[in-house]
């Protein structure tokens, strides 16, 4: 089943009178259960593409479909609804809310989705166990290592049972060991839950985990290939 489809998408940013064309007509499709890397040098349009698929931004032209629904013209609130139920995000910086504990950070999307207290308790505990952080549940982000924070972010992204998780350079700020742990956690969750992962990176060690690699350059897809084997690890 198709989770995301992008049809001839362009995205132009205007800064004063200067126009920057971040995407120049990108078309691609992402199937359910994929573990796909979006690669390319800085400025190639990876983050912009992720933001469009993630309903954070709108294309200048072209269509973006998420689970078959055209999201290109949705208004601000409709996009927020779409994100909340369907899409999980993992960012390069460890994007946790600093005033909330690990447990509360994971719980937050469930609260926004209106889950009951018992549902939340069960789901958060299960997720923290799956990222091996149940004993750190009561810690605030500043009491966790970078790797731990990123694993909390993964748990949070998974909390509302999204169909798609978008990870923008998830290991960029991590050392090798923590980076490896994060990638393995993501891969394991992909296999266990079937949730689709798309991650932007330019780190070859991370790319090696991908089952499919989409390469962007200057706002265009220049290569779209399936990896022959599963990642060999960092």
């Amino acid at each position, binding site marked *: 089943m198709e989770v995301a489809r992008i049809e001839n998408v362009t995205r132009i940013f205007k800064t004063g009178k200067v126009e920057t064309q971040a995407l120049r007509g990108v078309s691609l499709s992402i199937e359910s259960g994929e573990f796909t890397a979006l690669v390319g040098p800085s400025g190639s349009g990876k983050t912009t593409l992720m*933001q469009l698929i*993630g309903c*954070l*931004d709108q294309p200048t032209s072209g269509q973006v479909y998420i689970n078959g629904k055209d999201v290109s013209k949705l208004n*601000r*609130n409709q996009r*927020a*609804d*779409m*994100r*909340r*139920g369907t899409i*999980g*995000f993992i*960012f390069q*910086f460890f*994007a*946790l*809310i*600093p*005033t*909330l504990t690990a447990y*509360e950070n994971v719980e*937050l*999307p469930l*609260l*926004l*989705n209106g889950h009951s207290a018992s549902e939340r308790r069960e789901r958060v505990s299960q997720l923290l166990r799956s990222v091996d952080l149940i004993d750190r549940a009561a810690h605030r982000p500043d009491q966790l290592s970078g790797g731990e924070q990123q694993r909390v972010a993964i748990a*949070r992204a998974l909390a*509302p049972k999204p169909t798609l998780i978008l990870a923008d350079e998830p290991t960029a700020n991590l050392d090798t060991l923590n980076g490896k742990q994060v990638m393995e956690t993501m891969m394991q969750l992909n296999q266990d839950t079937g949730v689709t992962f798309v991650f932007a990176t330019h780190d070859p060690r991370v790319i090696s985990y991908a089952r499919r690699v989409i390469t962007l350059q200057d706002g265009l897809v220049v290569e779209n290939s399936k990896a022959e084997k599963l990642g060999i690890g960092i």
Partner: protein
Amino acid sequence: MIPLLKMAFRDLGRNRRRSFFSSLALAIGLALLLLMAAIIQGEMGSALDATIRLQSGHLQIRAKSYDESKTSLKWDDLVENPDQVAEQIASLPPVTVATPRLFASGIISVRGESVGVRVFGIDPLSEANTPYRLGLISGEFLTPDDREGLLIGQPLADKLGLKAGDKISLSVNTSNGDVAEQLFAIRGIYSTQTNAFDSVTVFLPLAKLQTITQTENHASTIFVLLKDSDQADAVAAALLTSDYKVLTWEKMNELIVQYEDMANAYMVIFYLIVLAITATVVVNTLVMAVFERTREIGILSAIGMKSRRIMAMFLTESSLLAMGGIIMGLILGSLVVAYFAKYGFYIGNFGITGMLIGNTIYAELTLKDTINLTVLAFVVTLLAGLYPALLAAYMDPVEALRGVK
């Protein structure tokens, strides 16, 4: 909305000092407003109280044609058989005391100096005159059969350099339009702590003033005090006859009531100015918080938090700051008000024509003022919090995630 409350509370805790000082600004503002309201209330309350006690009473019964501004002494303008009328009124259950009073215009002359005065003819034994009796600071109070004594107020005595026992000449108008002059001894000097009253009012026994003004068995008014001022209208209606007019304290003190309304209108402007200043501090704090947390707002938006919820989160922070400020303000305000309620503000000789204001104002905070000001402070702070809340709510998520705004 408990999670919002928790998040807002913790967010404020990130920069405790800043949050504390923002709340403190509101607290000081609110305390100032409570004090101002209490002073106005104290001033108005005491002015009304003094005027009722010393001058108007709760009710006055006068002849229909009596004109207060002319202090007429014509028999037609006066109440006939005043003792009898007063006695009848005093027998009514809501009435504390009813006593006849005669007013005349006069001039005191001593050592070549003359001063215009109002002469009050009073029944020295009536309870209604207790405030004057209690205010006696030297000499003795009048007796009903005193034919040569009078009481003068302290400011007048000071001005003319008089003391108890001194002799002065008093001229008064009479009922037939003549002027009668007689030498009197100052029996005593009184002070009601109300300069506007004490400096112009001279007391004579009613019988003596009736004699000298040729108004035997007549009085200008029957001065009535009630157990409860709210009953004034009901008692006035009961007393109404074709012979007399009955004036209530509200009617007689219209100026004070109007002045109070005017003061209240000005105070609302003052309140809004003070609150606008404190609200600016709160806005500043929250705008800084929004800019510091731009990326977090992006994250919240990315995980699907809608604009109105982000807005609610910042409004919750404003509410918490407001509540902290209000609690501190109420404590601070109560302490300051309690101090001035006990020791008062000495304002000295301060008066407005037609109003009797004591020389010290005691703060008096009403529950109504407290509630109104608390609600006003809360609402103004919350309104001020709208700007930063909207700023946060309508940030572009992409830009917010980049941490730029």
